[in-house]
């Protein structure tokens, strides 16, 4: 048995070269691609873990937001309920105030209407009284009634201030005597006598008829008017009635 040392050496070199060749063209590329894939898988897994953690955090945040929304909704509902109740209270208060004001206004209006109605009634009553008085005077005897009115007229003339009385009996002055019905000569003479006596002189008189007086006389001097008739009396009564209602 012999050993071919050349062959041994050649084979050693051959296998060494093969080791280098395969290391360069086979093992290294395969190991590199395996390592690259391992890194990519690791990176992908890390990324997936990160995404999962991120998704979990997002889910937690969404759940928190959802819970916050529910709480906010409850708060908004409570606020809206409270506002509605406040608005309702305000509206009820306003309505109560309006009703009270309307009631007060109605009461005032009713009172005003009552006052106006009473005025109308008083006016109508006055008219009725005038009518009644006119009818009654028609039934009374004219002479005593005239004498009574003339006496009152003379007393009122006598009560005038002296300068008015003096003015009334002056030559240029004239006193107009109004009566509800025409006066005859005797009645006119009686008027002239009573006034001369009351004024302290003889006044110049004129006579005219004023049916509105109902009954009685009315003297129109230069600066005075003396009324002694039922129209004046009724007017005075009406004025007093109105004064009583107003007070």
């Amino acid at each position, binding site marked *: 048995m012999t050993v*071919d040392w*050349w062959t041994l050496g050649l*084979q050693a070199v*051959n296998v060494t070269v093969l080791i280098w060749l395969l290391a360069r063209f086979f093992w290294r590329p395969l190991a590199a691609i395996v390592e690259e894939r391992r890194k990519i898988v690791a990176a992908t897994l890390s990324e997936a873990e990160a995404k999962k953690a991120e998704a979990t955090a997002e889910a937690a945040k969404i759940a928190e937001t959802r819970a916050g929304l529910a709480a906010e909704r409850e708060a908004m509902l409570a606020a809206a309920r409270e506002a509605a109740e406040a608005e309702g209270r305000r509206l009820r208060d306003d309505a109560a105030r309006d009703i009270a004001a309307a009631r007060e206004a109605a009461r005032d209006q009713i009172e005003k209407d009552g006052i106006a109605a009473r005025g109308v009634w008083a006016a109508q009553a006055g008219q009725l009284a005038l009518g009644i008085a006119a009818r009654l005077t028609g039934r009374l005897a004219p002479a005593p009634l005239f004498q009574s009115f003339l006496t009152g007229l003379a007393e009122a003339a006598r009560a005038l201030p002296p300068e008015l009385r003096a003015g009334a009996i002056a030559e240029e002055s004239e006193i107009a005597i109004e009566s509800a019905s025409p006066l005859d000569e005797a009645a006119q003479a009686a008027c002239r006598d009573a006034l001369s006596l009351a004024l302290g002189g003889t006044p110049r008189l004129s006579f005219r008829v004023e049916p509105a007086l109902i009954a009685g006389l009315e003297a129109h001097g230069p600066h005075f008017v003396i009324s002694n008739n039922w129209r004046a009396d009724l007017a005075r009564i009406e004025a007093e009635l109105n004064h009583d209602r107003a007070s």
Partner: protein
Amino acid sequence: MTSPLESVALFHLGPVPVTAAVLVTWGIMLALALGGFFLTRRLSLRPTRVQALLETVVETLDGQIEETMRVPAAAYRPFVGTLFLYILTANWSSLIPGVEPPTAKLETDAALALLVFIAVIVFGIRAGGVRGYLASFAAPNPIMIPLNFIENITRTFSLLVRLFGNVMSGVFVIGIVLSLAGLLVPIPLMALDLLTGAVQAYIFAVLAMVFIAEAVGEAEHRPSQQRKDP
């Protein structure tokens, strides 16, 4: 029939005789190198079936290295993997009619054993330095230095003899049976030879890993133990 122990030169390159084993080895080198180049030319992150198979081979080899040597596989992958691929291819080259596997020749197995012997030294020195590697011969105590040295030589020879004996005997038996019984009779023996070839390639690679791991481990641990001991 020529003796399997003899290497006949087919031709000479100057003073260098080129035997059939060398020629077949060149063919194997060419096939493996070109195959490796073309198979890894278009690797992608989405592997084809072929790429997936190749990656499985790499990952299996890495797992075997890390399991056996307890170190990262990257530094030892080319040496151990190429030894395995070459021996496997060489053993299975007997399937090609007229081709005698290079591993059936003593010189090829001796060259492989010599490479393992050198690799043990290189990886041992790389791991623990020259002193660390030399100190590993004194484990567990200096008395073991001669025995460890002899062990290094003898285990290299055991590698050589184991591979040569198994492959050469297979080829020899098939040759004898073929000369006696005819064309089809040796086929079961050839199938058995395939199994033997794969097992021998695996054993050679595993033993190479064990020897390298022993040297690397001893070289790495020895200096620290020396530092600890006053």
